[in-house]
């Protein structure tokens, strides 16, 4: 395979922009945990993420026949808004009842719902804005839980314009099939390592500096792409897999923040971690396959791009990296959005 032809990718890059310009890691899911503490009685943990002092406008609406056992406890943390409630759902419990999330449809985030019943049954679901409510099922298999997190991983990649743009930048530098394999593998191994480390609680990176560093990794690729077009060489151009591995470590922390910011229960972490990572890989490989297939299609159709279109991808990657870097550093130091 010849190097991935950069001349077409501007289309993808521009449309990526249109899709999710500056929203990459900022769409952390809200989290609802419901634990049965006595027959028909539940403790409820409702956490909505807060970014730059702004709380997501999602409201938790429990079924009408639910009564509070005691006064709710509300806590405002730096990164989230946490509400604890203790409720009585009557003798039939919550099975088959509907919990609504008014306001979710106005956002682009999800709600992760986890239910634990007294008899040990567990149930997990991700609620999307397209259907801002959930009906509590009676039971769920581990396969169902895994499926939920796989979907979450795929969605995170599809929604994370910064991850996709970084991968796109790498594809523009990579020159042959073997190097592509090494680079993709390097990125995958690296982000899997830090995703696991962070998710299992062995390391923690604050979200704001992390996002700024991820933006910086994209900015870093811009000049390298231009250098590669000019026929110049550099360490990154000769060994893109090393750069993919190094920055992949950063991106893994980013993936982890999407998974752990919801405050997942620890005993579910291994399954969630593996499934989420599988989902991330599906999303990432799907994106790479799409780029390669498009590039091949353009060659078969003998598409000849004008000069400005040839230059656009590198400048798009670099410019967006610069924009996100400035934006996120401003956020980091308390600037307004």
């Amino acid at each position: 395979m010849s190097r991935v032809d950069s001349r077409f990718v501007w289309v993808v890059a521009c449309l990526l922009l249109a899709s999710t310009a500056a929203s990459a890691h900022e769409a952390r899911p809200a989290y609802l945990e419901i634990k049965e503490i006595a027959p028909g009685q539940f403790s409820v943990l409702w956490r909505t993420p807060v970014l730059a002092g702004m709380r997501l406008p999602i409201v938790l609406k429990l079924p009408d026949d639910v009564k509070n056992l005691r006064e709710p406890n509300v806590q405002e943390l730096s990164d989230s808004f946490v509400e604890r409630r203790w409720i009585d759902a009557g003798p039939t419990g919550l099975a088959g009842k509907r919990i609504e999330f008014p306001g979710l449809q106005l956002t682009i985030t999800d709600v992760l719902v986890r239910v634990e019943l007294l008899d040990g049954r567990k149930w997990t679901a991700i609620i999307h804005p397209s259907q801002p409510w959930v009906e509590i099922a009676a039971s769920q298999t581990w396969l169902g839980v895994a499926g939920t997190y796989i979907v979450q991983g795929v969605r995170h990649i599809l929604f994370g314009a910064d991850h996709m743009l970084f991968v796109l930048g790498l594809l523009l530098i990579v020159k042959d099939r073997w190097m592509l394999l090494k680079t993709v593998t390097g990125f995958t191994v690296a982000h899997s390592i830090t995703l696991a480390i962070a998710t299992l609680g062995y390391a923690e990176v604050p979200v704001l500096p992390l996002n700024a560093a991820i933006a910086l990794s994209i900015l870093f690729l811009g000049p390298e792409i231009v250098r590669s077009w000019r026929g110049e060489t550099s360490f990154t151009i000769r060994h893109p897999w090393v750069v993919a591995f190094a920055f992949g470590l950063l991106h893994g922390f980013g993936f982890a923040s999407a998974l752990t910011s919801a405050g997942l229960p620890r005993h579910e972490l291994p399954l969630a971690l593996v499934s989420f990572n599988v989902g991330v890989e599906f999303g990432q490989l799907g994106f790479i396959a799409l780029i390669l297939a498009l590039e091949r299609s353009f060659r078969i159709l003998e598409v000849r791009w004008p000069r400005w279109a040839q230059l656009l991808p590198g400048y798009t990657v670099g410019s967006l990296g610069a924009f996100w870097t400035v934006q996120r550093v401003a956020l980091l130091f308390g600037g307004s959005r």
Partner: protein
Amino acid sequence: MKSTSRFHLPLYAFIVLAFVMCALPVDAHLYSTGMGPFYDGLMHFLISPEDIVPVLALALLAGLRGASYGRRALFTLPVAWLFGGLAGLSAMTTRPHPFIAAAWFLMLGGLLAADAKVSLRVTTALAALLGVYHGYLDGAGMGQFETASVGLLGLVFAIFVLIALAAAFVVRLRADWARIAVRVAGSWIAASGLLMLGWAVRTR
């Protein structure tokens, strides 16, 4: 005389189109993925048979004719769809005519099945007509959403990708049986059009 009429073909096509679009009110929707308007628009295209099937048929037809035809369809159809969509955004009261949807299936499926030797000009006209008509309908249906223009971009992106992949796939086909298989797909599309037409007549 012949060359003059060929020259005016796109013009005639757009006049017909203008009449068709003014004819009736429309109803459409934007599929909600929960991932933002770009993906909503993209998904809207992928789950709308009345959109995706004619585009696929045109891409396959262009692919059968060769790389230059595929290239022409690749750039004409998405651009026409975008312009049609932008025009449709401000028109929220149009209804797709069931006969016309069936006609697209019949015509493009029929041309594909027959491996018709359409000229590059006709291919361009078909792509422009299809793009403006369906884009207008999509735009009209999406106009009620504030982020419809971004949704439209997602939709156009999906069209661009589909044409690129499908046309390139067919251009590469050399074996007779493979090209016949593509034509068989055309016959199915035409047959679907016939069914749609029958249904439209029956429920009219």
